[in-house]
């Protein structure tokens, strides 16, 4: 699936939620189901520091494809991370660099990407793009 198709799939999934409670409960569920990064894998070198919560991002490059894993100490942030991983992981650096993702806004979570939230999500997207640029 292309990045655009995955984005559309996520938008469709979120369209069934009529109120914020359901949406956040789903994000929490997603956050809880993401495989965690072992404590030993949480280093300062892969830490994206926000004032609110911390995010760890790992990247591996194999046969021209970038794979990402990530973790956070905040569960809602982790839920949103899992969506970003779904979109970006397993794609080529060129696809990642070209992608101009808009699904976060379309599912009504754009406030989580505001720089003032300082939860590391915006920096995480920047870091993903940085990896893509480094491997392209």
């Amino acid at each position: 699936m292309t990045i655009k198709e995955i984005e559309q799939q996520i938008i469709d999934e979120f369209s069934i939620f009529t109120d914020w409670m359901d949406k956040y409960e789903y994000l929490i569920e997603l956050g809880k189901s993401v495989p965690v990064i072992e404590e030993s894998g949480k280093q300062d070198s892969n830490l994206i520091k926000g004032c609110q919560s911390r995010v760890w991002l790992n990247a591996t490059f194999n046969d021209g494809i970038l794979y990402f894993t990530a973790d956070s100490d905040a569960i809602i942030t982790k839920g949103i991370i899992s969506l970003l991983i779904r979109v970006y992981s397993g794609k080529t650096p060129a696809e990642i660099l070209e992608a101009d993702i808009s699904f976060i806004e379309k599912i009504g979570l754009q406030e989580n990407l505001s720089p003032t939230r300082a939860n590391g999500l915006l920096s995480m997207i920047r870091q993903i793009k940085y990896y893509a640029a480094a491997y392209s």
Partner: protein
Amino acid sequence: MDKITDISDIRREFPALEQSVNGKPLVYLDNGATSHKPKSVIDLINEMNSRTNGNIHRAVHELSARTTALYEGAREDVMRFINARHREEIIFTSGTTASVNLVANSFSASHLKKGDSVLISQSEHHSNIVPWQMACERYGATLKVLPIDDEGNWRMDLLDSMLTSEVKIVAVAHISNVLGIVNPVEELVSRCHNRGIPVFIDGAQGIVHSSVDVTALDCDFYAFSGHKMYAATGIGVLYGKKDILEEMQPWMGGGDMVSSVTFEKTTYAALPLKFEAGTPNFIGAASLGQAIKFIENIDHTLLLENEKRIVEFMRDRLIKIDGLKLYGNVDNKIPLFSLSIKGAHPSDVAMIMDKMGVALRSGQMCSEPLMKRFNTESMLRASFAMYNTLDEAQYFIDCLKRAIKMLV
């Protein structure tokens, strides 16, 4: 004007409290960060922005005379409010942080040298750490830290042994912005003065939740901000004892702070203008004067009783919640509660409660060393102001329980 004797009458004065957020009536519990403003303050700010605008102290025209009167009138209001002896002791700054920086620069320049020390406490806000750290680095001095116990109380038993002859100033908060503890500043001031050491007090929270009397307290400096006490942002105060301020040299130059300027030599203006370089925030200062008048018009017993009720209510409910850890001595605090919950990150709780209309603070609260002291990365904080009610406290507890249920 009749004195305000009811919380609902106070609430009516604050237009911000009438709004809904995320479809829910706003329950604003982030007052430790900044408070809302009453109509009288907003009206004055609007009036000055739209009509009564002229630079102070400089011109003979009518508008300048009016703004100067408002600015200097506010200085009198502050003086009365904290019971200072002289108007020269009230310096307007841009806020508490600027006041700390003023003293950390000007006082240190003439008092700190290599081998000296500055003593702060372990529960300080970054604003009362970093400026002193910078001053210590500049003069080769050492920053010493008075530890706190597991309940957040100052280790007063260690104080005397730490007040060595190298300590040139002690800088501490009146009330902790994280723990809400009212620190024993009277005792600290008296013990420091026994050794001839001056004391700087960060009163950012203290000015809001206690009756500050700088003459009785006898502190050498007391700093606070307007925006946490119902005035505009960008205005603050440094109170300093006249004799100490007299001997300090200004650290910022320009504007109204001079007596005479030649290319060879500048002589400085008398207090307080010596420390007010550049066009001051005269609208902010006037708003602070107005906020003080607003506070003075409220029955003081009403405020004390409301705070006490909220503290008791919150404490009794919070300690019953499973997995909840409340930080700081619960028997000596203002209505400000920092907590953590097992299995729920503070930012997650704050995010969910925001959707319920409750405004909270989460994170390190500008107190990273204090977070480390309690082995945590972040906390959730609810801080109340004079306009908050028991009903809001109840709503907070209900929402907190719902949020925990969703997360844990």
